[in-house]
């Protein structure tokens, strides 16, 4: 586990760096909030309603397809590193796996999910 010592330290230390930087900035920067200053920026217009609103489902569907292919990518990592050991049999097995996923991609393609409306 000590192989990941640096990773753990970098994780904690960079979060700490952010906290320290923000603290130091708060010492030298002014703090004078007004209602106008704190209103969300909309090029001078008065903002209407909240920004945490419903949005187009296209993004959601893209995320769904992404999950499919990202999981595939995770399975491909060990396969790619050990391809010479698994040999042709492993290669063909992975082709079958990718083929199944490709059917999913073709389905999404035909359903016009991939063409932004």
């Amino acid at each position, binding site marked *: 586990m000590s192989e990941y010592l640096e990773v753990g330290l*970098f994780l904690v*230390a960079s979060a700490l760096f*952010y906290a320290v*930087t923000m603290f130091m*900035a708060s010492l030298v920067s002014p703090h004078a909030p007004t209602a106008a200053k704190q209103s*969300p920026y909309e090029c001078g217009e008065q903002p209407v309603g909240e*920004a945490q*609103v419903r949005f187009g489902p296209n993004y959601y569907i893209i995320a769904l397809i992404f999950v499919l292919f990202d999981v595939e990518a995770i399975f*491909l*990592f060990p396969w790619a590193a050990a391809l010479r050991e698994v040999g042709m049999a492993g290669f063909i097995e992975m082709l079958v796996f990718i083929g199944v996923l490709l059917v999913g991609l073709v389905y999404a393609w035909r359903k016009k999910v991939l063409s932004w409306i």
Partner: protein
Amino acid sequence: MSKPLLELLIAGIKFALVLGFVSVNALFLIWLERKVSARIQNRMGPIYVGRPQGWLQTAADALKLLTKEDIIPAGADRLTFVVAPAVLFTSAVLLFVVIPFGPGLIVRDLKLGVAYAAAVSGLAVISLVMAGWGSNNKYSLVGALRSASQMISYEVSLILAMLSVVILAGSLSTVEIVEAQSRIWFIALQPLGFLIYFIALLAELNRAPFDLPEAESELVAGYNTEYSGMRWAIFFLAEYANLFAGSALAVTLFLGGWQGPWLPPVVWFFLKTFLVIVVAMWLRWTLPRVRPDQLTSLGWKLLLPAALVNLGVTGFLVLAG
């Protein structure tokens, strides 16, 4: 001093070095970007602060940003708003763990280097969505959603292009991948892989021609519209750290890493990395921004199938030949 403590101390020194490098690198790259943009547009760029070439301009900007007010918009989701820059910055810094600057010049040669790099760079999406959602600003939200959909679309192609290099090297360690290129750089064996990686990298970094998430002419500044002062500076710092890390990974995977004749390895590494960065800056002023529908079809209908075919052909050739 006991051994674990000593190890921790060394790791801390490595962190300080990386932090220093990331900061100086961001100051330099922003200056470089402004200079390159200026040259391409037949302007001078910054010249006054730090003569003759305005090299102190970005340092002065950083100092100014430090003294600027930290504004949190009314109705913002405070926690996500405040934490978002830290997430992006952390993911950028974590990438530097596996970048081999030269023989032995690496924070830690992880066995899973490439997988680690892919995993860590994927964290950036979370930060942008946090920033966009937390800001209570419609521009930020649209910018964040666009960058999320764009980054996850191109991440798959990016990973597949990386994997074809992994097949050639037979290892996930970045150091071993560089060493495997001592005879021939992988760009010669993987020209298509490099092209896919580079295009996907530009999209991952939200850089032109894929800068829809921050399209100034319609979205003000995208996900970071509401950020000011040091919080905004941290976002910028992380973006340029990511630009360097992404280009450095391109060099590591495809351009032979630190390897090259005559000059010291570190010099070669930086020469190649800055070449990739300058090409990315050059493209920004050469290509117009793509439309969202072009972006989606390029990613899913062209790059992804091409990357899959490339991966399959590479695997077959490695096994057959």
